[in-house]
């Protein structure tokens, strides 16, 4: 049976980390499963956890009065759900809901923050990797702002 460290080694966020570091990080992780429509994150609640999705799909949404839940992004296998555990005030900014059966590794944010405090190199490496994920999402949002499919785009 695969350990959490084995599972993490398969995910792009952790690829290239040595075994000792992986096991150190894996100490803060556990396997979790969600059923379709399970609420994973709720806006405003304490952000103590983040997830690396192993399978399934999750919708990130924002409640807009009069419009209901507006889906702003969907995440799938290998993607990271949740950054708010990393930055004060440690509160979720959005809602997240499983759209199908989801398997993930859930990390205790406080545990990982404490490990990063004691091992600044690990903190630097993880921050770099999270920054890359955040940059990717920012690029995606910028493309959406461009409204690339808008009038005048093609034929």
């Amino acid at each position, binding site marked *: 049976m695969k350990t959490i460290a084995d599972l993490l080694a398969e995910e792009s966020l952790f690829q290239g980390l040595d075994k000792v570091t992986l096991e150190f990080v894996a100490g803060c992780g556990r396997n979790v499963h969600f059923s379709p429509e399970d609420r994973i994150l709720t806006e405003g609640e304490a952000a103590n956890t983040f997830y690396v999705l192993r399978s399934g*799909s999750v*919708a990130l*949404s924002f409640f807009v009065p009069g*419009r*209901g*839940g*507006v*889906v*702003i*992004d*969907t995440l*799938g*296998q*290998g993607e990271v759900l949740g950054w708010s555990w990393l930055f004060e005030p440690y509160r979720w900014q959005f809602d997240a809901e499983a*759209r199908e059966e989801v398997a993930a590794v859930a990390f205790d944010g406080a545990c990982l923050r404490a490990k990063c405090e004691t091992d600044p190199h690990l903190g630097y490496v993880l921050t770099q990797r999270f920054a890359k994920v955040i940059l*990717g999402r920012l*690029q*995606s949002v910028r*493309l*959406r702002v*461009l*409204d*690339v*499919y*808008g*009038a*005048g*785009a*093609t*034929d």
Partner: protein
Amino acid sequence: MSMALALPTDTRAADAMVPVPYRVVGRARETADTITLTLEPVEKAIATPVPGQFNMLYAFGVGEVPISVSAIDAGHRLRHTVRGVGAVSQQLCASEAGTVIGVRGPFGTDWGVESAMGSDVLVVAGGIGLAPLRPVVHELLRSRRRFRRVTVLVGARAPEEIVFRGEVASWQASARITVRTTVDYATAAWKGDVGVVPTLIERVTIDPEVTTVMICGPEVMLRFTAAEVLGRGIAAERVRVSMERNMQCGIGRCGHCQLGPVLVCTQGPVLPWSRVGPLLARREL
């Protein structure tokens, strides 16, 4: 005094400039601003186009625009999907059954579907960019066994702006190919992905050594999608894109569609990314 009319010495070129009358026999609304026209020749027909090629459609008295073929039927019927964004395309969209329009073509290069046989095929469409790729999907489905893994990624601004919505859903339901749709904006009722179409590239299985990629959509989307597929290890020669430029003559004479050394109307619209990618990175072009 009488004057002799100077005729072009290249009669093939002259013929290519003469619109052939076609009658609108079908008109289907795809989205709020996009219509698919089915055309039949009034008398003589143009040659049968190949997936990826385009025709110049002439709204008499208004003007001419290049429009890709969005399906290839047996016989001489043509199907073109037109988004009404300018005077000519809006006039074409408004054409009711019985309207006669002019057709010149077919022009340009094709997707080279046959050359992808035996390989994986990844089709990526953004907005109305699905129209030129639709005949490719038809061919992939028709000859499914001749291709390995087939993946179709479709992006649009909102669910109601996906062209050929019903057909895309039927491709998904058939399970013969992998189809993923993504939109920029959605409510909770939407079950597809949310985000721009390049973000789907990292979510699909790709065997870079044997994958042929065909991309069509707005230029910004082409650039970001190409960057993603190259990032997955696919060689630029295996990535084909359909270019949108100001095609006017269709036969490489007028130069309006020129992109650096490339005349898009004759050397394109379908071009390998290895050729067109460096040109799109130059602002002066």
